[in-house]
């Protein structure tokens, strides 16, 4: 008994160091190992528990293996036959029971957490409801309580439960914000997956599609932007404002005929493409062209990104469903004009 405690004493600092190591890993807005909300935290606790148990198993097996391999090497000149042992009932029972106990230690919190995660918040009046619809290769976010729809950047208020309902328009995708919560698939068969998370801190979190969905699967990212309640309210108001028109009449006409058949801006347009209201203040264009006005290695102003996208959408996101504006008959000037207009379409919040 004493001896076993000695072993534990040696293991504990190791576990502590290991936890620190894990926690040092990756970006805060992306890493599973740096959870930024209660749901991800619960999952991370389970991960820590399971890693700890498994490390104990590994240490035992590795130590035993090292011992055996060093101690029982065949030495030169050894000719006598070793004793042929059949087995040992007691030992075998021991190493059946110990794994069983370890599994039990992991199974109990697992089951607890499974049911916690399965809780349905969709009838909770306090929760913000968001209907997520995935498309090849972009994300649509609808807020039925506010009657607004946006795409790519999911804006949420801090500290509120966000109750999600997930579905897809085409193939299976999977909705994943590593630092806020584990992933859940968007199924095409009418079964709507529901779950929820909340973000206590303001910040931008990276989200990813985690299910192979075609050539641009790797580019199907999104952002979750958690903002204060006031900002969120402002954002909702701004989203509901009517469209800011383009001044140049001819360009406005082109925009309306060629772009708004699919995209919506403010109160105008269709819904088969991503909603573009306030795209100038989004984090990215097409989810992988990161917008950044800061001078330096990664300066990519929104306007440049928009132009890059509009000039050749297929080269940015192969296989995506948007027709190239050139094929629709837009001239370079028109493309530049639209890019400029959209880049300046910012929302105040």
């Amino acid at each position, binding site marked *: 008994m004493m001896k076993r405690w000695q072993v534990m004493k040696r293991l504990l600092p190791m576990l502590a160091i290991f936890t620190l190591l894990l926690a040092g890993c990756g970006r805060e807005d992306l890493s599973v190992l740096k959870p930024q909300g209660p749901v991800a935290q619960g999952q991370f606790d389970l991960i820590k528990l399971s890693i700890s148990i498994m490390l104990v*198993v590994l240490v035992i097996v590795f130590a035993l293996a090292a011992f055996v391999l060093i101690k029982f090497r065949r030495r030169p000149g050894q000719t006598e036959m070793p004793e042929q042992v059949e*087995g040992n009932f007691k030992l075998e029972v021991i190493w059946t029971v110990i794994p069983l106990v370890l599994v039990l230690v992991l199974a109990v919190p697992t089951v607890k957490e499974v049911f916690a995660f399965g809780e349905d918040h969709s009838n909770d009046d306090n929760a913000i409801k968001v209907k997520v619809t995935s498309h090849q290769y972009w994300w649509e976010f609808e807020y039925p309580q506010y009657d607004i729809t946006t795409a790519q950047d999911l804006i949420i208020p801090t500290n509120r439960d966000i109750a999600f309902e997930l579905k897809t328009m085409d193939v299976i995708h999977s909705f994943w914000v590593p630092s806020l919560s584990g992933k859940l698939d968007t199924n095409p068969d009418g079964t709507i997956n529901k779950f929820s998370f909340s973000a206590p801190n303001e910040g931008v979190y990276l989200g990813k599609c985690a299910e192979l969905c075609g050539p641009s699967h*790797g580019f199907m990212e999104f952002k979750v932007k958690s903002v204060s309640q006031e900002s969120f309210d402002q954002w909702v108001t701004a989203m509901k404002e009517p469209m800011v028109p383009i001044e140049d009449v001819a360009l406005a006409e082109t925009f309306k005929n060629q772009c708004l058949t699919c995209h919506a801006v403010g109160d105008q347009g269709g819904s088969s493409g991503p909603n573009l209201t306030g795209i100038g203040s989004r984090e990215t264009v097409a989810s992988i062209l990161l917008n950044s006005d800061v001078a330096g290695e990664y300066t990519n102003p929104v306007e440049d990104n928009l132009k890059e996208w509009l000039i050749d959408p297929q080269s940015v996101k192969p296989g995506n469903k948007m027709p190239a504006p050139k094929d629709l008959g837009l001239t370079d000037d028109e493309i530049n004009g639209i890019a400029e207009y959209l880049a300046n379409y910012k929302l105040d919040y």
Partner: protein
Amino acid sequence: MDWLTTVDHKKIAILYLLGGGLFFGIGGIEALLIRLQLIKPMNDMLDAQTFNELITMHGTTMIFLGVMPIVFALMNALIPLQIGARDVAFPFLNALGFWTFLFGGILLNLSWVMGGAPDAGWTAYTPLSSSMYSETHGVDFYTVGLQIAGLGTLIGGLNFLATIITMRAPGMSFMRMPMFTWTSFVTSAMILFAFPAITVGLVLLTFDRILGANFFDVAGGGNPVLWQHIFWIFGHPEVYILILPAFGVISEVIPTFSRKRLFGYSSMVFATILIAFLGFMVWAHHMFTTGLGPVANALFSISTMLIAVPTGIKIFNWLFTMWGGQVSFTTPNLFAVGFIPTFTMGGVTGVMLASAPADFQFHDTYFVVAHFHYVIVGGMVFGLFAGLHYWWPKMFGRMLSEPLGKWTFWTFAIGFHMTFFVQHFLGLIGMQRRIVTYLPNQGFDTMNLISTVGAFLMGVGVIIFLVNIIRTSMKPIGVANDPWGDGRTLEWTIPSPPPEYNFKQIPLVRGIDAYWKEKMAGNTEMAPSEPVGPIHMPSPTILPFIMSLGIFIAGLGLMFSGEEFSNSFMSLIFNNWIVCGLGLLITFGCMLLRSLYDDHGWHIEPEELEEEGV
């Protein structure tokens, strides 16, 4: 020609080895291309479509056409020898199984040159794999090719079952069978239950794609999640179909090179059966994030974790086999000993994945890629390398070079850990799998670089192994019956390579590790259980080859039945099902021929046996 008509299990084993080796090489090249693409962020060496084709073909090829046939090579080479039989139960079927596998594999790989490889992942989830979203013939190659190859596997599995049940030498009760035969037996039983599931799935998907059925199409009342269930009801047992024979190999190699009998033989047998049984109960752990609900997730979590128990039994039994023995580090044993920690690591991450809420974070990330490569490469491929080095002298009558073997081990093992260890962390810091590239500054760059370098080191290991094989094949045949000196089972009692009939006289088995038991009693040979007499041999035949060719043609015909060719003759023969019909005609014709024409085989007479002076 000899090789096209052979029905000898030893030659078929070599054919499987060649075929499996070929596809393993192709799959390996695909893996290296994938890794090369991921070496740095925003790399554009490959385009996204090609990348998806590569991951799909890499996974499919490795699992169905690479390691599976190499397992079958070992099973074919050894099961009859280990149980003291002259061949498998149905030599004709054995040949047929090989040829259908080969033609299925060729069909699948033809997709590279015939207008698009499959691109929906080796799991081919619908609707991505439906003709709506995967418009080339790629997935047709996948469904049809795998059906044909799967037919071969199923035939092989049935044959091994029949062989092991009916053809054991006198005295070899089930509880005296060598562990490799045991695991092969259980594996074959799993094939029997698992492969029909995937076949049904593939047939349904073929119907959807080629004939416009609606099994998985929501608009037509179908259900895509159904595909996931069908796929994983096969897919999960499949990974145990792969790993169990490796367990068998390890259980043979470790005792030999520790000079001790296997610790806890009966618990090993029991654990094997339990793993097989549980293997069928846990398929939905691949689907935790599909949204099955908390009850299902909880149940599948727990049943999955339970597999750790029999697996643990095995690991400790191996360790205690070495305890008190005299462990020598030959190449086969290096791989076997290397297997233990590597597989254990794959196993523990498996238990971590089993915890459903944690899996919401792990699923479809590089953590999973790391996990299953630890199990499949660190477990199964290490096991195969151990088995190949161990039995090479028996199969070919020549010893592989030990120094080269050790180089293979060290480069491969170090490369392996470099490649896959860091992937655990890549997954945990947010890198999803199956992505063609990634943005810089996410913390992924260095680890991906390490991973790629490691992959090439593994490649070096494989090349050293090939060099070893080529060098060895220059040497003359002629190693002793028992070249390692400590062989314990029946295959080591006969010459290397064994004569066509294996055993001049079927041996009498007096205990576990039959040969070793005789050695301990001071005998150098097995006691025979029958007098020397004429040995009945099956005749060689080309029919299995032609039958498989027929199925191959029918498959092509089916795939292109709806194609619009620019050439009117091609349209005529494909669109009117003429090609498909012709293929089937060939196959059924061969069957008819086989039924009508009675072939009694031939005999090797006792005098000839004496002449060979065995």
